[in-house]
C-alpha cells in the first residue's frame, strides 16, 4: 500500500512539474529545437526560400572557404570582440575600484555611469552615434576648438569606422561596473585587515586579495560578453546603414549572415554560417574555460 502511495506521489510530482514548466518546454521545442534541427539541415542545402531546399553536401562550407567577404566579416568581428570586450571590462573594473569607497555621492555617480548601458542598445543612440562621428559631427567640432581643423569622417573612413563601434561598446561599461562593484563589496574586510597587519602595501593587497577574489565574476562576464561581441548586429547595421561599409570595414559576422539570408536569400549558406559561428563561440568559450583554472580563483566552499 505504502509502495503504491509513493509511486502515485512521484507520478503526481512529475505531472505537476511538467505542467509548470510546460510554457518553457513547448517554447523550447517549437522555437529552439525544431529551428535548430532545420538550421542544421539547411546548412547542407541550397535554399532560396521560394523553391525547396536542395541537398548539396558540404558545398556551402566549401564556398565559404573561398568567400572573401566571409573572411572579412570574421576579421572584423574578431577585431571588434577582442578589442571592445577587454577594454570594456578594464574600464568597468577600474571605475568600480574607484567607486569602492564610502562616499555618499557614489550612488548618484553609479547611476550616471550606468545611463549609457541603459540606452546604448537603442536605435536612437546608434543613429546619434553616426551623426557624432560624421565629417561635420560633434567630434570634429570639439577637435576644432582645440585648433585641430579637420574634415575627416570617422564613420566614412575604413580605418576608423570600426573604432566608432568599439567606442560605442566600451562607452557602455556601466553594467559590468555595477557587477564588479557588487563583487568588490563582497570581499571580506578581514582579508585586507589581516594583510595590513602583515605589512602589505596597497598594491600588494590589490594583487593578492582584490584580483583573485574578483576573477570568478570577471570570468563569467568575459564569457557572456565575448558571445555578445561575436553576435553584434544592430549597432553595425544602423551605423553603417545596413551595408557594412565603408569598404566592408564594419561588416560584422551577424550582419553579413543577415545580408546573405534576407538580401540574397541564400538560406542554406547563411545557416551554414550560423553553425560556423556556433563552432567559433564554442571554441572560444572552451578556451576560456580550459585556461580558467590557471587564473580564476575559486574559494574552497565550506558548509555551503
Amino acid at each position, binding site marked *: 500500500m505504502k509502495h503504491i502511495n509513493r509511486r502515485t506521489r512521484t507520478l503526481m510530482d512529475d505531472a505537476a512539474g511538467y505542467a*509548470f514548466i510546460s510554457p518553457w518546454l*513547448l517554447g523550447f521545442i517549437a522555437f529552439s529545437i525544431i529551428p535548430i534541427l532545420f*538550421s542544421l539541415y539547411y546548412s547542407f542545402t541550397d535554399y532560396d526560400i521560394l523553391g525547396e531546399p536542395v541537398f548539396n553536401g558540404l558545398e556551402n562550407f566549401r564556398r565559404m572557404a573561398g568567400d572573401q567577404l566571409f573572411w572579412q566579416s570574421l576579421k572584423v568581428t574578431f577585431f571588434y570582440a577582442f578589442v571592445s570586450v577587454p577594454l570594456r571590462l578594464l574600464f568597468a573594473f577600474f571605475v568600480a575600484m*574607484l567607486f569602492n569607497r564610502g562616499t555618499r555621492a557614489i550612488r548618484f555617480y553609479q547611476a550616471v555611469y550606468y545611463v549609457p548601458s541603459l540606452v546604448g542598445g*537603442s536605435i536612437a543612440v546608434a543613429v546619434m552615434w553616426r551623426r557624432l562621428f560624421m565629417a561635420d559631427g560633434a567630434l570634429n567640432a570639439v577637435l576644432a576648438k582645440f585648433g585641430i581643423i579637420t574634415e575627416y569622417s570617422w564613420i566614412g573612413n575604413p580605418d576608423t569606422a570600426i573604432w566608432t563601434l568599439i567606442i560605442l561598446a566600451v562607452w557602455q561599461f556601466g553594467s559590468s561596473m555595477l557587477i564588479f562593484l557588487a563583487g568588490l563589496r563582497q570581499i571580506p574586510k578581514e582579508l585586507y585587515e589581516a594583510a595590513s597587519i602583515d605589512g602589505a602595501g596597497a598594491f600588494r593587497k590589490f594583487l593578492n586579495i582584490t584580483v583573485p577574489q574578483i576573477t570568478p565574476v570577471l570570468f563569467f562576464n568575459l564569457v557572456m560578453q565575448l558571445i555578445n561581441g561575436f553576435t553584434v548586429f544592430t549597432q553595425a547595421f544602423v551605423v553603417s546603414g545596413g551595408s557594412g561599409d565603408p569598404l566592408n570595414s564594419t561588416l560584422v559576422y551577424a550582419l553579413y549572415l543577415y545580408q546573405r539570408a534576407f538580401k540574397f536569400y541564400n538560406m542554406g549558406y547563411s545557416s551554414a554560417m550560423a553553425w560556423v559561428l556556433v563552432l567559433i563561440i564554442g571554441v572560444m568559450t572552451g578556451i576560456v574555460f580550459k585556461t580558467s583554472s590557471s587564473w580564476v580563483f575559486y574559494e574552497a566552499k565550506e558548509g555551503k
Partner: protein
Amino acid sequence: MTNYKLKHILGQTAFHIVVILLGFLMLYPILWMVSNSFKDNAEIFNSSSLIPETFRFDNYVRGWKFNNSVTFSTFFYNSFYYTILSTIGAVLASSLVAYGFARVPFRGRSFWYGCMFMTMMIPYQVVMVPQFIIFHKLGWINSFKPLIIPQFAGLPFFIFLMVQFIRQIPYELDDSAKIDGCNRFMIYSRILFPLIKPAVITSTIFSFYWRWDDFLGPLLFLNKPRLFTVSLALRMFSDPMTSTDWSAIFAMGTLTLLPVLIIFLIFQKYIVQGLVTTGLKG
C-alpha cells in the same frame, strides 16, 4: 588641522573632480542628442554645443508627423502594444516555470534546467532563418505574432533569476499552505508569487527594455510602415537616402528614450539588483 586631514580632503576633491568630468563625458552624447532635438537643422552641423541658440519645439511636431501617411502615434502605439504584451507573457510564464524548477521534484528536472542554460549560449543567428521560414509558412509575417508568442514561453534569464529567489524562501511556508489545503498552483499564485516580487519587478523592467529596444525581430517580421515599432521608424527616418532632417530625427530619438529613462529613475534599485544577482552568481 593635521597634515593627514588636509591630504584626505585634497584626495576627496580630486576624486570628485575626476569622477564628475568623466561622468560628463559619459553623458555628453546623450545630452548632445537632446540639445540637438531643439536646434535648428543648420545649427547641428559642426556643432558640439549643448545649448541651442533658440529652442525650436516644432522639430517635435515635424518629427511626429513622420511622412504624413503614418505618424509616430502609430509607432508608439505599436511599440507599447508589442512591449507590454510580450512583457506580461514573459514574466508570467517565467514565474510559472521557475516555480516548477525550484519547488517540484519531478524526474528530468536538472536535465531540462541544463537545457535551459544551453539555450542562453546558442546565438540567435542559428534559429533566425528557420524561425523566419516557419513563421512565413504560418502566415505570421507582418503581424506581431512572431514577436509576442515566443515570449510566452518565458525567458531563461528571468527563470534563473526567479529560481534563485524562490530557493531563498523557506519550505515551511509551502508546507503550512499545503496543510491549509492549498494545491501547488495555489501555493505558487498566492504564497510564492507575492514573495518573489523583487524578481518579478526586475524581470518586468528588463523585459520592457529589451522589447522596447529590440531591432532585429521587428526588422525580420514587420515590413509595413503601419506596423513599425519606434526602433524601425527611427532607423527608416535616419536613412541617408530619404531624409536629412536631423533635428526631427533627434527629437523622436529623444522621445523613444524617455520611457527607458523614466523607468530607470523610478526602479533603479531593482535594476541594479537584477544585474548583480544574475551577473554574479551565473
